[in-house]
């Protein structure tokens, strides 16, 4: 945990923290200071920014600023809930598979890999098509999509840690598997988990915002940055801010999360399989990825 303040000392990390803090404050406390109701029109549709409505009005005449202030909460909490749920399951599977040293490992991992046969967005659309448009469906869907990656990285980290001397010592002391995993392995892989959580959170945000943008997530009149962009897009030439303002907020949120996660991964400075997997997860990891790590499925001996 002591690494968190150090993230702020790198330029990219500091910038990321600052951006993220601003967006999160807007998202969490914005609804409290929103000057108007998000569902009632305050003027004609598509009015240009003015004193009464600093960002103008949207296609139904509602205040864009109020909707912008209220539209971040759903993005953050749904993405957070989905990532957390995914971690709850993924962590259990990964720890069990990594430490079991038995047939449970391949069985669990192959089972999880099945989910990789689909593009992520397709899984979400299938679920929405089958179960209907609902926040719970969205959360379950994103959790399912993230599950294989989480289980995989936790398993790799567990395998790497399980060979250490202190694990052998704990085994020799006769500690039970459960307490060993929870008290010896889990604390030691927590930095990796934290880094991976950041990366996943960023990805969850993109997925949820995309589904909302497609109109298959939250339903109107909910204020949500993704939904706001799509519902106002047809009227983009009337008041560009109704589309651009939520776009800027979403962009800042994505950039902030990625900068922080990226700086944190670099600070970990780990080498080996776990680091390679973490790097591969980063949507914007600059620097060298060993090409061989990405060729792995091509190796015929597997």
């Amino acid at each position: 945990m002591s690494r968190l303040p150090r993230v702020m000392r790198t330029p990219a990390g500091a910038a990321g923290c600052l951006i993220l803090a601003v967006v999160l404050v807007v998202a969490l406390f914005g609804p409290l200071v929103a000057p108007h109701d998000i569902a009632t029109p305050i003027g004609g549709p598509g009015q240009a920014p003015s004193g009464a409505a600093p960002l103008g009005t949207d296609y139904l005449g509602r205040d864009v600023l109020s909707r912008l202030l209220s539209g971040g909460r759903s993005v953050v909490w749904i993405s957070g809930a989905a990532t957390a749920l995914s971690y709850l399951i993924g962590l259990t599977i990964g720890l069990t598979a990594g430490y079991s040293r038995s047939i449970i490992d391949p069985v669990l991992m192959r089972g999880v890999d099945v989910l990789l046969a689909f593009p992520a967005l397709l899984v979400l659309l299938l679920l929405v098509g089958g179960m209907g448009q609902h926040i719970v469906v969205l959360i379950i869907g994103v959790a399912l999509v993230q599950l294989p990656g989480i289980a995989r990285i936790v398993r790799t980290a567990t395998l790497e840690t399980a060979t250490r001397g202190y694990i052998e010592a704990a085994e020799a002391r006769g500690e039970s598997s459960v307490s060993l995993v929870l008290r010896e392995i889990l604390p030691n892989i927590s930095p990796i988990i934290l880094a991976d959580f950041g990366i996943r959170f960023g990805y969850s945000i993109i997925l949820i915002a995309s589904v909302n943008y497609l109109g298959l997530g939250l339903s109107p009149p909910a204020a949500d940055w993704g939904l706001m962009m799509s519902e106002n897009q047809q009227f983009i030439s009337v008041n560009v801010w109704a589309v651009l303002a939520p776009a800027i907020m979403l962009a800042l949120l994505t950039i902030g999360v990625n900068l922080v996660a990226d700086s944190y991964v670099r600070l970990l400075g780990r080498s080996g399989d776990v680091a390679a997997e973490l790097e591969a997860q980063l949507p914007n990891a600059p620097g060298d990825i060993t090409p061989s790590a990405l060729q792995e499925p091509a190796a015929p001996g597997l």
Partner: protein
Amino acid sequence: MSTSVAVPTGSPRRVALRRRHPVMTFVIRRVLAGVATLIVATMLIFASMQILPGDVASVVLGRNATPARTAALRADLHLNQPLPARYLTFVGDLVSGNLGNSSAALAQGRTLPVSQVIGVPLRNSVVLAGITIVLYVPLCLLLGTTAGLFAGRKPDHAISLTALSLGAMPEFLVGTVLIVIFFTKLNLLPPVSQIAPGDTPFTHPNALVLPVCTLLAVSVAFGSRLVRASVVEVLREDYVAMARLNGQPRRRVILRYTLRNALGPGIQALAQTVQYLIGGIIVTENVFNYPGIGNKLVQAVSVRDVQVIAVISAILAAIYVATNILADLAVMLAVPKLRTQS
């Protein structure tokens, strides 16, 4: 420097003689795995069609339910058969090209074959994806090689930073910003890709520009980063140093020694891009209202047209799996080291 490198035991020829041709073994294994994946995928698609709370027919029909329509839809979706039999019918129909009827149309009392619903959109999407890929490859090679050759210096930073910040954005954000710039501000390109039903995308090149740019902006980061990484790696190799010391012209060193050996990961990147495009195209087509398969899929989901959702998902999943196999095979054939290893 190179004396300490471990020499691999056994020449490639001896390995090839000892066992069955490794490429063949690999192909068989990969195709079998692919078929297994597809079976699981169709099961998942089938399952997602069944988890509708309540009876599928009544949910799809909603307020349009009449006894006659319910009966028609139940017959069309084979709802009167037991579950395993229904799954087999579903897969059998898909394989034999009998794609069934649009459930949403049945709900309105019409019969509309799915093949008619998705035919033209599928072609439009293939055009969009094809143009993107054709531009993607040279763009990645150019940007990746430039960044790799100037690694750690200004051109590298400029390319990497731009590509990476674009690559981290969702497609709809990039697409919307492009609309704001090229439509709202400059009024150069249309914000909506209108293609008349009888026309092909090629007769409306303007409609393709922004969707292609969006897909490229989001995907090039990944590819160029891979090319950059492998160029950096190859540049460190002894044979590149050797070629340089031999006085080979710089251009030749880059084109013949560096780029060619950096291609392996490039193929892998290309495959991952095709797979990315399957998801990316769904969002991008909706940003520009481009009449493609992704647009159709989202429409089908919003009206819960079960049969159309199932068919489109199955097609996309099949493309996904096939790309994987082809890419692995291409890498195998391109990189001699992998071909001969056991």
